[in-house]
């Protein structure tokens, strides 16, 4: 699933899809942590998943605000449009 998220990040050019792929990647990493913690009977895996959840929430709020700004500025959700930014 992490690979799928990475592929989505690289293939799609729509900013919304890039952010969703980032979510998938974070989720896959958390899944690996929780499964490993369940395998070795440790609580650390779930603790790390809680941290990942917090980080994903903060990241998504900032990322969506950035997407709104970019859309107002370029009237497009193309990731290539942002490469024309100057200054």
């Amino acid at each position, binding site marked *: 699933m992490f690979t799928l998220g990475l592929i989505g990040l690289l293939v799609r050019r729509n900013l919304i899809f890039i952010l969703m*792929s980032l979510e998938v990647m974070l*989720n896959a990493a958390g899944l690996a942590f*929780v499964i490993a913690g*369940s395998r070795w009977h440790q609580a*650390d895996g779930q603790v790390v998943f*809680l941290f990942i959840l*917090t980080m994903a929430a903060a990241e998504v*709020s900032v990322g969506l*605000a950035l997407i709104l700004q970019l859309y107002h500025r370029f009237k497009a959700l193309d990731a290539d449009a942002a490469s024309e930014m100057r200054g």
Partner: protein
Amino acid sequence: MEATFYIASAVAVIATVLMLTRLNAVHALLYLIVSLLAVAVVFFVAGAAFIAALEVIIYAGAIMVLFVFVVMMLNLGLRTEEMERRWQPSRAWIGPLALAAVLLAELVYLLTAGSGPAQIAGSVEPKQVSIVLFGPYLLGVELASMLLLAGLVGAYHLGRRAPEKPEDRYGADSDERRAAAGGDLVHAGSDRPARTP
């Protein structure tokens, strides 16, 4: 128990693949929500019921609501009506509904089979998690709170609508404009002819 794990994993992978191949953002969001729910079922099977609940509440609830809000805000205009008309056949619901039905069947089977999360081998109790979280990882909790505060302030700062042309906004401070608007008390009436007594 093993079969449910693999079925939920397969549902998660299939939903993710379908999400990446959608062209419409809302359809992709539907598949992403199904994928998150499937991961939550995987957590439940793996014995982390608390984490599964958090996954549903925070990921599929809060974060996806943010996504849906932004997608709806960006699709303003004439294209929206056209898209609404195209959604009318509602074929887009069939795929996520089928995958979610598989997950629901799994969940009902798990709950009625009498194997709660406590009986599953390898389950980690929420109490253990809390003890570890607020024990050795206390610094991490504080850092997470700072991160959330920074995210809140950053999202507020970035989410404001920037003024289109700053010179227009501050241009009203020039003397001519203020006199034309009649708001300048210092130079008010200085261009009128002096009144003769």
